[in-house]
């Protein structure tokens, strides 16, 4: 991959649901090996942005390129080939209820017929160890796990195929601060070990600073600020400052219906 070509490039991305314009022209470049954290209020379109990049939602306009390959118009095997380069940790882990933990972790490998079921189980146990879970967890079902363990299994599933790009949707939501820090640490370790490009969306400022090299803020359907994640708390941008410090007063007006 040429250094000049970003791993992910978005140009003029727009998406509306009915009258609500969620994305209003997103331009974003993410260099290979970078960890970008996208922050923004609830309903600001962070999840829609990620789902557009993953091809789960079709944007109304704009282009998405992953590793120089334009996603627009791709379907079937071509889209699957792009998705094979991607791993995703969903907000609530989104583990498959009907499958045991080891099969959740190895699902992508089995789906691509890269591995036998016996080898898949052994591989899953190795990957579970990388996220701090023992082999005794492998035969359990997701409903038998705590929220933190489910997030770890979700992370193991996301990294199982050693993807070039990792997405994290609110990775610490619903976890206590200590478990949140543990999950963040695991994410950073996994991203570094794989050398992946990472995009995380979060409201959690501590998590954002731990995970990200860079940060961007989404507001009003646009990227209103980009910079180093370390500068998030002192960005000088009034929108970012209000959000990161959690101030009620400021340029961001929350929609409150009475």
């Amino acid at each position: 991959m040429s250094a000049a070509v970003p791993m992910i490039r978005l140009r003029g991305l727009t998406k509306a649901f009915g009258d609500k314009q969620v994305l209003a022209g997103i331009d974003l470049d993410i260099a290979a090996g970078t960890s970008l954290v996208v922050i923004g209020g609830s309903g600001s379109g962070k999840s829609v942005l990620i789902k557009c990049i993953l091809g789960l939602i079709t944007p109304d306009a704009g282009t998405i390129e992953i590793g120089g390959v334009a996603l627009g118009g791709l379907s079937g095997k071509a889209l699957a080939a792009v998705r094979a380069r991607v791993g995703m940790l969903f907000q609530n882990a989104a583990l498959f209820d009907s499958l045991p933990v080891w099969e959740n972790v190895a699902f992508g490998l089995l789906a691509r017929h890269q591995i036998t079921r016996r080898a898949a189980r052994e591989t899953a146990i190795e990957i579970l160890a990388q996220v701090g879970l023992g082999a005794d967890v492998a035969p359990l079902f997701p409903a038998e796990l705590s929220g933190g363990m489910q997030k770890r299994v979700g992370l193991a599933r996301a990294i199982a195929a050693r993807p070039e790009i990792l997405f994290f949707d609110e990775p610490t939501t619903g976890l206590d601060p200590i478990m949140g820090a543990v999950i963040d640490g695991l994410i950073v370790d996994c991203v570094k070990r794989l050398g992946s490009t990472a995009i995380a969306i979060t409201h959690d400022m501590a998590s954002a600073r731990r995970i990200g090299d860079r940060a961007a803020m989404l507001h009003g359907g646009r990227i209103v600020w980009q910079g180093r994640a370390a500068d998030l708390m002192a960005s000088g941008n009034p929108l970012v400052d209000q959000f990161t410090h959690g101030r009620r007063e400021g340029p961001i007006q929350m929609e409150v219906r009475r």
Partner: protein
Amino acid sequence: MPLTVLAALGRFVLDASGFAGRLALFTLNGISHLVRPPYYGRMFGRALIEIGYFSLPVVALTAVFTGMVLALQSYTGFARFSAEGAIANLVVLSVTRELGPVLAGLMVAGRVGAAMAAEIGTMRVTDQIDALATLSTNPMKYLVTPRLLAAAIALPLLVAIADIIGVLGGFIIATAKLGFNPNTYLANTLAFLQTMDVVSGLVKAAVFGFLIALMGCFFGYNSRGGAEGVGTATTAAVVSASVLILAFDYVLTEMFFAR
């Protein structure tokens, strides 16, 4: 006032057309994966066991009581004009042509259609379907097509068993309660039964099975809005499958037996 009525009518027609179009595309998409690998044999096997094997008790109970009631009711009716000898014939024709497939279909719609809508709907609202897509797995191919195929195969098997059990129910009442000779009853049962009577019932069952799975998958796959959305999808799946079973029963009866 007339404009308001026209606007409402227009909205209804547009909504209905949109729904029909989405359902038709969903159906074609689900069927098309039957001839496009990869295939998920494990999912098909699981669906076959869930629909066929685990529905057997409820379908068998329905069939045996239906056969028993048919024998009893027809006896009280036919005795008025000394036609008791036709009871065996009536029971076997009613069960194989109509009551076997229709009642089995309705019972399976309540049991399996609801379960499919609830399971797939829950997967939708908890992002599990999106997770499938990110793991190089087509959700239609993985979740929908195996269920459509399994239901279309399992229901005829269930109905074949229900036919036998339904006739047995009639036989038990006729011989144990109404005093019929067992050999004569069985001879009468087989004497007037034609291959088409059984085959038409099995074809109906295959169609009903497909419709049940289609409704369960369609409403589950398109459910929105958390637990309430899943509940709505489940209700819609069962109600629509039940209505479609009765409607297609008429259409198929016309096709097979209308002169």
